[in-house]
């Protein structure tokens, strides 16, 4: 009988942080423009020691102004989607719940597109105008998960299969809306259909957006983390959790809002990247167990690793042409989804 300790948790996170660092270094080296290992290592050391002025300007531009921001974006998006997936799985008591499968990502996309279309009509200062997209995505995500939740109920209980079907149907309905909006209401600033349907990390953003994403992630993920032990008990059902002392309505509300926010955050900057919220929590559960005090931080780090890795593949496999990162995650995620579905059925 050895319960989880803080030291054990920190150790697990440290290991994942080191893996993330290695993946980030690899992701910075590989790309359409080859960077020699020696030059990269030299520049990396110079960067780490604050001697950025000595870095050659070509490499510097590619490494620090193009690749690094994109990697940072991948880290935040991956972590957000994984934490959202983990939360939805606990909240809906369904191991197959994931923002993409449940249509929440598509809902966030619709919200973001509507916000982009509507933005010019409000005379907002640029800073607020930039926040309109994630806000729209959050509202879209929250409305979708609420709809799927009610469609997935049968006789007052959440039915696992009905819920998944409701999610799949909602996702396809919302995809149709996305296509409709993209074909009919083109305002030139809506990033293209492939972005919203398959996900893409190639858009460059201003520094302020990164601050917003980073702070938003830590606030929402932190809020979910305060309910970590409650989520452990919720896995056994709401009634049982209540009898063990969980304030079920409060936990449900906190997790529902924060997970929708994280999905909206990720989708507003990268579109719908598939299955990350499904695969990563499952792998982490296999390695570290299903205690949410461990699962939430390890899933966040694992999600960051997975998306940085997937994006590196997307950039390099058929370079200089780029794949959508969502295509890479779907190729891995869809078979795993089928496997989990079959295992659950038996």
């Amino acid at each position, binding site marked *: *009988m050895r*319960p*989880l*300790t*803080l030291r054990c948790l920190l150790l697990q996170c440290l290991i994942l942080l080191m893996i993330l660092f290695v993946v980030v270094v690899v992701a910075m080296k590989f790309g359409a423009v080859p960077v020699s290992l020696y030059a990269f290592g030299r520049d990396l050391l110079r960067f780490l020691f604050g001697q950025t002025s000595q870095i050659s300007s070509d490499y510097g531009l590619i490494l620090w102004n193009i690749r690094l921001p994109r990697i940072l974006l991948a880290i935040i998006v991956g972590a957000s989607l994984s934490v959202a997936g983990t939360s939805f799985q606990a909240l809906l*008591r369904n*191991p197959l719940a994931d923002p993409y499968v449940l249509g929440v990502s598509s809902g966030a996309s619709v919200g973001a597109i509507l916000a982009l279309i509507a933005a010019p009509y409000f005379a907002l200062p640029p800073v607020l105008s930039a926040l309109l997209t994630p806000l729209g995505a959050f509202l879209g995500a929250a409305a979708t998960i609420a709809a799927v939740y009610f469609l997935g109920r049968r006789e007052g209980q959440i039915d696992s299969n009905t819920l998944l079907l409701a999610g799949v149907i909602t996702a396809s309905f919302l995809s149709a809306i996305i296509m409709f909006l993209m074909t009919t209401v083109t305002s030139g600033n809506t990033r293209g259909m492939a972005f919203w349907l398959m996900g893409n990390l190639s858009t460059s953003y201003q520094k302020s957006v990164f601050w917003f994403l980073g702070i938003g992630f830590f606030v929402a993920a932190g809020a979910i*983390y*305060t*309910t*970590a*032990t*409650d989520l*452990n*008990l919720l*896995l*056994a*059902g709401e*009634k*049982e959790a*209540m*009898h*063990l*002392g*969980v*304030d*079920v309505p409060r936990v449900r509300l906190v997790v529902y809002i924060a997970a929708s926010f994280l999905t909206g955050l990720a989708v507003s900057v990268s579109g719908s990247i598939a299955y990350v919220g499904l695969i990563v929590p499952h792998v982490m*559960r296999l390695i570290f*167990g*299903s*205690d949410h*005090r461990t699962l939430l931080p390890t899933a966040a780090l694992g999600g960051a690793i997975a998306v940085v890795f997937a994006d590196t593949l997307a950039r390099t496999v058929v370079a200089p042409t780029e794949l959508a990162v969502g295509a890479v995650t779907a190729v891995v995620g869809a078979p795993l989804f089928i496997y989990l579905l079959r295992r659950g059925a038996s």
Partner: protein
Amino acid sequence: MSSGSALSRNPSEASRSGVDPRLSVEQVSYAYSANPSQAPLFTLEATSFQAKPGELVAILGPNASGKSTLLKLIAGALAPLSGRILLNGFVTHSLTPRTRAQRIAVVQQESLLLFPSRVWEFVLQGRHAHGRSLRFESDDDVMIAKNALAQVGAADLSARSMDQISGGEKQRVILARALAQQPLLLLLDEPTLHLDIAAQVDLLHTLRRLAAENRYTVVVVTHELNLAAEYADQVVLMQRGRCLRVGPPSSIYQRELLEQVFQTPLTVELGPSGRPRVTVLSDRQ
């Protein structure tokens, strides 16, 4: 430290509760309707009984007689339409979920697991209400969980996975989790369901012992008339949402009364322990 003392509460609370009845169900009624504008589908008429620390109360009655509803009301999961339920002077429904879980432990019919955990992890869940939301389990929590497992005779299961133990073992582990809550009141909804006869006797025997050792008040909903007669101090007899009678088994176990409630011919005689024993008569006799 003996396992009994580790699970008992502080002495001041025990002595205070020794004066008054610990559990007091006062004229409690309830109505359930699917739609507020429609007539209720089910009603529970005013029900009253009291139970002291160390007592085992059995709620008996045919299906749909309101047994489980009464248990949910006592647990504070439902709000009564009228009347009130007091546990050591506090209205159970008004307590916060956390405070309620520190005083009342509920063992339900089924405990489903989405991701199976180890037995000891499952029992440690009982400590949730005693800690802050994000803390890690202390040595005391581990000790209490170990003692709880030992008290139900399941110490050897500690390292096993919850999906690899038998139904009887699982029921004992679920009971251990309830004990780890260190409650004043232990509520069980048909705990003997799906158990073989030896496991049923074993469970009731354990409950009887725990009630005496830890001064728990135990309320059990059950269909097992003979087990209830053997182990209960008080029986609450229910029929179609009405509480017909409350009292010791000897006063409740009367042939005419039980035949009328359960709608089947039966005989009642005294068993070797001096407690009543029911035999259901089939048509062939």
